[in-house]
């Protein structure tokens, strides 16, 4: 197979070549992952690759190590999922003990997730959808909240929007918030972000209608009761506030405990919390059309823009 990297933009190419040097058998997957990306998705992935390079001072070794870790983990979980038809874990307590408290693995996991934002087409497409579809809908001076900001890339892309007024982020893990703060500082986010240790079940009390937008990206699958979380978020939003949700369906991972089986289930979940869904992006795993992914129960990232609207959940 001929190397396809010559067609990639510089930051993306440098990153992909470092991955392939460590994991040459992955070329077939990456060829599919970069094939047929829109110009917008490719351009944003290049920008993201540059940001990731900035976070790691141009040294991809940790990212490569994290990416290899995440690929091995996904293979193990996929085998379990295909055999049993369900995710391995179903309770927060299980994954808290086996994953979240394992600091060495969590470092690899977070670095690996960062790498997937460029390398996995479904993640790159959702990032593009967020930056170029969701954020431009937000009103001048918008007050934004992200729940579970992780490495802070989405917060960064929100902060650089001209219309952005203020930013806040919540996470149950103080260590995760430290990582977010460190990443935002390295990225040079142009606006301050108020970071709060807490969860959507407790923090939502007395914060009614305080935000114009809320982001919940790759969080739902980690929750035992996502409907309750979404109902609380509904209350946090102003009357015409917008919600961005990104949730993968049929996507086994060691810390995924809430399984959605189709994009329509994801939409129904958001609607059950009282939202009106405006737009949906379904981004299947690389190499699959949406039709084939639905037929094969393959992983699909579902990105949803929803409006609070006048109703109550």
């Amino acid at each position, binding site marked *: 197979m001929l190397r396809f990297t010559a067609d990639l933009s510089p930051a993306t190419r440098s990153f992909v070549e470092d991955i392939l040097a460590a994991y040459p058998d992955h070329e*077939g*997957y990456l060829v*599919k992952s970069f094939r047929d990306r829109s110009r917008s998705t490719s351009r944003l992935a290049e920008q993201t690759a540059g940001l990731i390079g900035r976070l790691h001072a141009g040294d991809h070794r940790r990212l490569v190590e994290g990416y290899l870790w995440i690929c091995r983990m996904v293979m193990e979980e996929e085998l379990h999922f295909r055999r049993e038809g369900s995710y391995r874990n179903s309770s927060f307590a299980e994954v808290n003990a086996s994953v979240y408290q394992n600091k060495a693995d969590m470092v690899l996991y977070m670095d690996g997730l960062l790498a997937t934002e460029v390398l996995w087409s479904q993640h790159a497409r959702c990032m593009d959808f967020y930056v170029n579809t969701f954020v431009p809908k937000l009103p001048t001076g918008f007050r934004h909240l992200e729940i579970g900001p992780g490495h802070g890339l989405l917060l960064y892309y929100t902060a650089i929007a001209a219309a952005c007024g203020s930013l806040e982020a919540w996470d149950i893990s103080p260590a995760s918030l430290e990582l977010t703060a460190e990443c935002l500082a390295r990225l040079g986010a142009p606006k301050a972000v108020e970071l709060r240790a807490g969860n959507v079940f407790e923090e939502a009390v007395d914060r009614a209608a305080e935000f114009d937008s809320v982001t919940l990206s790759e969080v739902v699958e980690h929750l035992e009761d996502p409907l309750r979380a979404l109902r609380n978020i509904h209350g946090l939003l102003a009357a015409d506030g917008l919600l961005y949700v990104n949730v993968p369906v049929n996507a086994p991972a060691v810390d995924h405990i809430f399984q959605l089986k189709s994009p329509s289930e994801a939409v129904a979940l958001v609607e059950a919390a009282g939202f009106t869904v405006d737009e949906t992006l379904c981004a299947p795993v690389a190499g699959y059309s949406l039709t084939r992914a639905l037929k094969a129960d393959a992983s699909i990232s579902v990105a949803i823009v929803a409006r609070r609207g006048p109703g109550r959940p």
Partner: protein
Amino acid sequence: MNREQVLEQLTGVLREVFDNDDLVARPELTARDVAEWDSLNHIRLIVSVEKAFRIKFKTSEVSGFANIAEMAEAVVAHLAGRAP
């Protein structure tokens, strides 16, 4: 079930997993010969083979087949109750 019978049934599994009706389970066939045969689809193939033949591969076997012939031989061994 002998190796030839297993290979014949494997053809159907390969076609279903890789969504390609031209595939034939030739003994020398490898992942490099099939564009859609990546690491993730390999897992789908393994589990589809397990379900088709009502067997369960050992962890050491999952990524250990050099070609379809080795996979077919492993299936024959499992069916005969003499898995490695």
